[in-house]
């Protein structure tokens, strides 16, 4: 006598449903654990970092869910355990389990009572309904999974207060505060350029807003760093007339570009008073003057697409010859207003202000390592190293102007006269442009600060020097 096959099939069906139910239970637990983990990690990191950590939470959630599923001890289901479950649910007093167990025993001879037991168990087969016995229901706590999922979505969307990570990294905080001051100073100076210009006002407003955000510590330092870097990049690119790319910080780059174009249009008004030759001569003179004064980084601040037109008018004089060089630049033998203008601007270069500098915050490369090595250094004071890009330009410039020519002339009572073939060299494919004077002006505060720090100026005098330079306004010389 053996156990009935129909009974065995019913038991096996119960067994399969038990396994499926356990799997469902494990998945529900995993989902629950994942949601709880996500919520906890998201909230914790969000509070710590001021809204960061969403991706980490997204990674931690499935990891926690899978770990929970794998580490949760699972019941081992066999035909015997299924039979015991059936007995318990149907109150069959261990009939089925005993029959299943004894059916697996390899008796030499089965006794009478065992045979009666198999028959008795088979007679109870009709009571076994696998679907009713093992309903595939998700556990009670799984009901909370959906609200938890909603909570997780909500937690990813809600704004978080300022993170505690602001309290970390005091040195970085100082740098950021310094950047904020510089941004605000830059905004002030933008407004002084042309208080009536709405574009400049808009740009100044944007800069001031960002600066205040940083100063009020409403941005995490990592985000502030990124913001500053990109802002400087945009400004630098704007000042250089390069492409403006990327707009991930909420700053309207199109507007920035538009505003910087406005700035350029203001500058062009100043340069438009000069003839092209005068403009070339002025630029060359300014550069030479700056180099001669021992500011090797001054010229390097120009961008690659800001290559200076080479006026081979012999404007390669040293600092002592500045004024006369400029005077003879361009037309070759016409001292006059233009020369005066050039000497004045060159003089500004002697004082440490690089007229070729673009927008930028001084010392950015020092503070933010190599990530910040933009052309802003070109506007910095002596000792500031130029970026690699500027260095390349400098070498290119040597390629364009492999040698200098000596001027010939004579000194008479009426003045000095020089004669030299005037020629210009154009860079194929590039448009020749001048760096804007006003754009260079914006690097003034940073340059001043650098100079003050590197020259070990006593703190009592630092304010005087700072005030002196901050009072310089481009519009006053116009």
């Amino acid at each position, binding site marked *: *006598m*053996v*156990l*009935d*096959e129909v*009974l*065995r099939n019913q038991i096996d069906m119960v067994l399969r449903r038990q396994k499926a139910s356990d799997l469902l239970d494990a998945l529900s637990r995993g989902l629950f654990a994942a949601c709880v983990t996500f919520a906890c990690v998201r909230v914790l990191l969000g509070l710590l970092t001021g809204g960061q950590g969403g991706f980490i939470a997204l990674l931690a959630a499935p990891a926690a869910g899978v770990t929970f599923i794998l580490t949760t001890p699972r019941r081992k289901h066999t035909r015997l355990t299924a039979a*015991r479950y059936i007995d318990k649910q149907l109150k069959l*007093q*261990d*009939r089925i*389990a*005993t*029959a299943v*167990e*004894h*059916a*697996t025993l*390899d008796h030499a001879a089965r*006794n*009478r*009572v*065992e045979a*009666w*037991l*198999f*028959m*008795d168990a*088979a*007679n109870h087969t009709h009571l076994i309904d696998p679907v009713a016995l093992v309903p595939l229901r998700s556990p009670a706590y799984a009901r909370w999974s959906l609200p938890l999922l909603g909570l997780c979505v909500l937690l990813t969307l809600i704004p978080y207060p300022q993170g505690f990570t602001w309290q970390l990294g005091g040195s970085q905080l100082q740098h950021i505060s310094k950047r904020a001051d510089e941004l605000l100073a830059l905004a002030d100076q933008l407004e002084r350029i042309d208080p009536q210009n709405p574009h400049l006002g808009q740009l100044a407003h944007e800069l001031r807003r960002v600066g205040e955000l940083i100063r009020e510590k409403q941005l995490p330092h990592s985000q502030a760093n990124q913001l500053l870097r990109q802002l400087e990049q945009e400004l630098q690119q704007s000042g250089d007339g390069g492409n403006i790319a990327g707009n991930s910080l909420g700053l309207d780059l199109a507007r920035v570009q538009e505003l910087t174009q406005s700035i350029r249009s203001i500058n062009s008004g100043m340069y438009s008073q000069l003839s092209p030759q005068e403009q070339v001569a002025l630029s060359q003179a300014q550069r030479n003057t700056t180099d001669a004064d021992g500011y090797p980084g001054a010229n390097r601040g120009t961008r690659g697409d800001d290559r200076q037109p080479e006026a081979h008018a012999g404007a390669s004089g040293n600092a002592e010859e500045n004024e006369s060089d400029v005077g003879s630049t361009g037309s070759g033998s016409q001292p006059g207003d233009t020369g005066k203008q050039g000497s004045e601007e060159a003089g500004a270069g002697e004082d440490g202000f690089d007229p070729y500098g673009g927008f930028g915050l001084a010392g950015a490369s020092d503070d933010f390592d190599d990530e910040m090595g933009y052309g802003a250094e070109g506007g910095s004071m002596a000792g500031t190293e130029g970026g690699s890009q500027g260095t390349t330009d400098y070498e290119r410039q040597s390629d364009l102007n492999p040698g200098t020519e000596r001027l010939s002339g004579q000194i008479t009572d009426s003045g000095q006269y020089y004669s030299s073939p005037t020629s210009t060299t154009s860079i194929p494919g590039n448009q020749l442009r001048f760096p804007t004077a006003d754009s260079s002006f914006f690097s003034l505060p940073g340059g001043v600060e650098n100079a003050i720090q590197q020259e070990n100026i006593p703190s009592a005098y630092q304010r005087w020097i700072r005030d002196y330079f901050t009072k310089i306004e481009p519009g006053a010389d116009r």
Partner: protein
Amino acid sequence: MDNYGKVKRMALDSVPESVEVRRTLDKVRAEIGKAFVGQTDLVDQMIIALMCGGHVLLEGVPGLGKTLLVRTIGQVLELSFSRIQFTPDLMPADIIGTNVLLSTPDGERSFQFQKGPVFTHLLLADEINRATPKTQSALLEAMQEMRVTISGNTYPLPQPFFVLATQNPIEMEGTYPLPEAQVDRFMFKLYVHSPNLEDLRTIINRTTGDTVPEAGPVLSANRLLELQMLVREVPLAAHVRDAALEMVLATHPDTSQATPLVRQYVRLGASPRGAQSIVLAAKARALMHGRFNVSMEDIREVAPAALRHRVLLNFAAEADEIRVENILAEVMASAAAE
């Protein structure tokens, strides 16, 4: 290797032997009920002990029908019945018998073994705790080995052989508590309780009338022996067996299964005989209830009767008035929770 296949679906009623077993047991209960009113649990446990071939220790105050129950069982089972009233001056020879000197008409004299009252199927040892330990111990070999040894000669006892002993829980002066070895040989220790109002009314009606109902024979000795063999064939699932063993181990204070009360109040737990008694009695109970397997319910039902006289309490239990029943209730609850 699994043994599965087509089972001919038939009602167990169509199997004559299984039907006959159940009917016989029902008849036994019904016949006993004619003379012994109420206390069906006690009667059932008595029948279970008989089906297992186990001895029973009945405890109850005088006048509750202990002797009547034993005598009725003897009548129903068609078994020879002897009664020994244990007293302090009772001697072992009064129980097991003795060699007597006989003289033949030829003048020859010889010793001849005179069988004592122990040579019977059903022995009622009334108030067994009033005899001296020496006399009590005379039953040891008879209860365990089903034989008696006198003067180097061994005499087997008739089969089946049951000892149904009674003891009075009151009037303990001048009594001799049974030695542990002898107590352990009783399969069950059963309490005889006072009848309730309904049972008492029935008792009065039956015994004070002009006719007293008598129980008739239902089961022969041979048939009872067959039933005893059948009981041992009842299948027992491993998890049910393990539950019984866990229960027995739980009565030992030095085991991991011990309950808090056991650890505090028990001096000695149940012996392996206790586990044997539980399993065998559970099998008999299953058969009596028309099942062919032992269930957890069977184990739980028979365990107290099989364990209560095997668990020895310490002095702290007596001081705190803790009874064995309290401890066994905790053990049962612990087993049920698992």
